């Protein structure tokens, strides 16, 4: 027989009450775990998504660059455009190793249920995409050809050589295009896109001479800021309304935005932990009241202040640590659901974004439940340990 066994037997003595208390702690710890893993997963997903762009600098039309960036990352309909000739300014700027210009538009069908995104690219685009690879076929065979992402090919049920039709009724008359290539699945936004030769897309969507984004790869990554400044200066000189920003800045800004919301959510988690702690305190205090005579008997047989304190404290720790483990389990079990909700709620969520498991977060959560147990158990343990043995044996109040 040892201390832990006695404490464990006391915890399971009232299984329903202990389970409910444990559930309170578990929910709070699950929230903490999900929040910390959300931050980690979001940053990782964002970093991965930006890395897959294969560029160091992004140039978009004037406006909110972050809104623009999310449209670039996930595709969509553009609110404003850049002029095609501005691309020449970019290409001629010193320090620019490679660049590609993109035009994009979307056709919304079935009352918004189907959203097909078309991307007009030039021959430089595949060079900037590290994972650009064909499953079948290849580059545009003619001006009237398309390359399909893996998911787009599936939804269009098209193979190389087949014809697909672009149409949204009034704006764009039905236009037939032949499939020249189908890309391998990359688990990025490319999977869902339909790529067209840039001039073809501009012609079909009546966007002649317009661009939505230019991606730039620099010759020396350590001098990215210098290139950004040169591009901005060139843009000002040409009175071009270009918004030039390094992707590292985009990552920093998005994670900073995330961090500010994290503080708010963390405050909610702290409140949840406090509520869980008060629940534990109440439960343990209740069990101490119920066991007053038993505590008196223990004192009569020679148990000292520290002995009684230790038993009650251990009981509290067992409850909260078990709650901590259950909370981590709960967070892992509900991770998919949480991600689905977050994707729905967040204005932008990276494709690779997921709630994972890291040892650091795990131990932090278990540590939090230990601290919670130590704090919540102190008062009941002290009350139990300080009771007079005579009063306790008589079943008196603490």
């Amino acid at each position: 027989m040892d201390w832990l066994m006695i404490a464990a037997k006391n915890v399971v003595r009232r299984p329903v009450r202990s389970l409910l208390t444990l559930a309170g702690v578990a929910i709070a710890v699950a929230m903490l775990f999900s929040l910390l893993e959300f931050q980690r997963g979001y940053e990782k997903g964002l970093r991965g998504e930006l890395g897959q762009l294969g560029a160091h600098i992004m140039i978009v039309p004037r406006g909110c660059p972050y809104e623009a960036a999310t449209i670039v990352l996930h595709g969509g309909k553009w609110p404003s455009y850049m002029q095609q000739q501005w691309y020449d300014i970019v290409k001629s700027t010193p320090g620019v190793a490679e660049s590609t210009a993109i035009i994009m538009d979307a056709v919304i069908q079935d009352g918004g249920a189907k959203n097909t995104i078309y991307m007009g690219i030039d021959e430089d685009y595949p060079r900037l995409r590290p994972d650009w690879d064909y499953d079948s076929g290849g580059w545009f065979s003619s001006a009237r050809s398309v390359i399909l992402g893996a998911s787009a090919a599936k939804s269009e049920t098209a193979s190389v050589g087949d014809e697909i039709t672009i149409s949204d009724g009034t704006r764009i008359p039905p236009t037939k295009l032949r499939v020249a290539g189908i890309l391998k699945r990359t688990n990025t936004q490319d999977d869902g896109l339909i790529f067209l030769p840039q001039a073809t897309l501009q012609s079909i969507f009546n966007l002649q001479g317009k661009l939505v984004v230019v991606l730039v790869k620099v010759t020396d990554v350590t001098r990215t800021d210098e290139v950004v400044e040169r591009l901005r200066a060139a843009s000002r000189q040409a009175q071009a309304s270009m918004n030039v920003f390094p992707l590292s800045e985009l990552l920093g800004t998005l994670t900073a935005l995330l961090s500010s919301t994290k503080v708010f959510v963390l405050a909610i988690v702290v409140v949840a932990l406090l509520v869980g702690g008060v629940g534990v305190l109440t439960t343990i205090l209740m069990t101490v009241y119920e066991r007053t005579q038993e505590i008196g008997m223990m004192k009569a047989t020679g148990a000292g202040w520290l002995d009684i304190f230790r038993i009650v404290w251990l009981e509290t720790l067992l409850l909260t640590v078990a709650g901590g483990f259950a909370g981590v389990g709960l967070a892992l079990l509900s991770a998919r659901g949480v991600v689905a909700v977050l994707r729905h709620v967040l204005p932008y969520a990276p494709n690779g974004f997921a709630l994972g498991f890291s040892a650091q977060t795990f131990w932090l959560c278990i540590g939090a439940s230990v601290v919670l147990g130590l704090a919540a158990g102190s008062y009941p343990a002290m009350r139990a340990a300080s009771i007079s043995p005579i009063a306790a044996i008589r079943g008196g109040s603490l």
Partner: protein
Amino acid sequence: MNASDYIVEATGLEKRYRVHGRDIPAVRGIDLAVAAGEFVVLLGPSGAGKTTTLNMLGCLDKPAAGRLTVADNLVSGDGVRVSEARLDALRREHVGFVFSDFHLLPTLTAVENVALPLLWQDRRGDEWACELMTRVGLGHRLSHRPNELSGGEMQRVAIARALVNRPSLLLADEPTGNLDTRTRDEILHLLQELNGEGLTILLATHDRDLTDYAARVLHIQDGLLKEV
């Protein structure tokens, strides 16, 4: 008889309780000496001061006045202030308690209940606890929980628990108060046997029939002690 031959020596022991602002005397200056190996019955009606006396002798309660020595340790006397921790240690090392309503922990098995006081000494004594369970005739009930035992069996477990720290003094407060006559006699025979093995026993009761088992009977009435 030498001073050290006495397990308990009390002189002018007093205890008062404050009730509604008034001091009510519970024990009024009793003198008592219990020698090692004695079986003493403290007989008295309800409210006479038996339990209060026992609690003071067992270091559960502090006397208001008087001098008390337990197993050669001064517990109370003029100018003597003994800490709670010291009283805990005295109970742990020298005293065994048996109560009328057993006070067994329902979550523990019989043998775990017996071994419990060893935990306060950071000692493991599973074998010793089993031995004591056999000694009180419950070797076959080791892993039964209190709710699976009869009243007599529960009191036997409580006696084994009181003996586990090898006390100098066993204090039994109405140990047969919740038992039928046959079980009462069994328990008293067991206590007699233990006394025969050298254990000092002080038993408080209101039941005159129990005096037959003791070599010495003290009568307590209104907090005053009288040898019969």
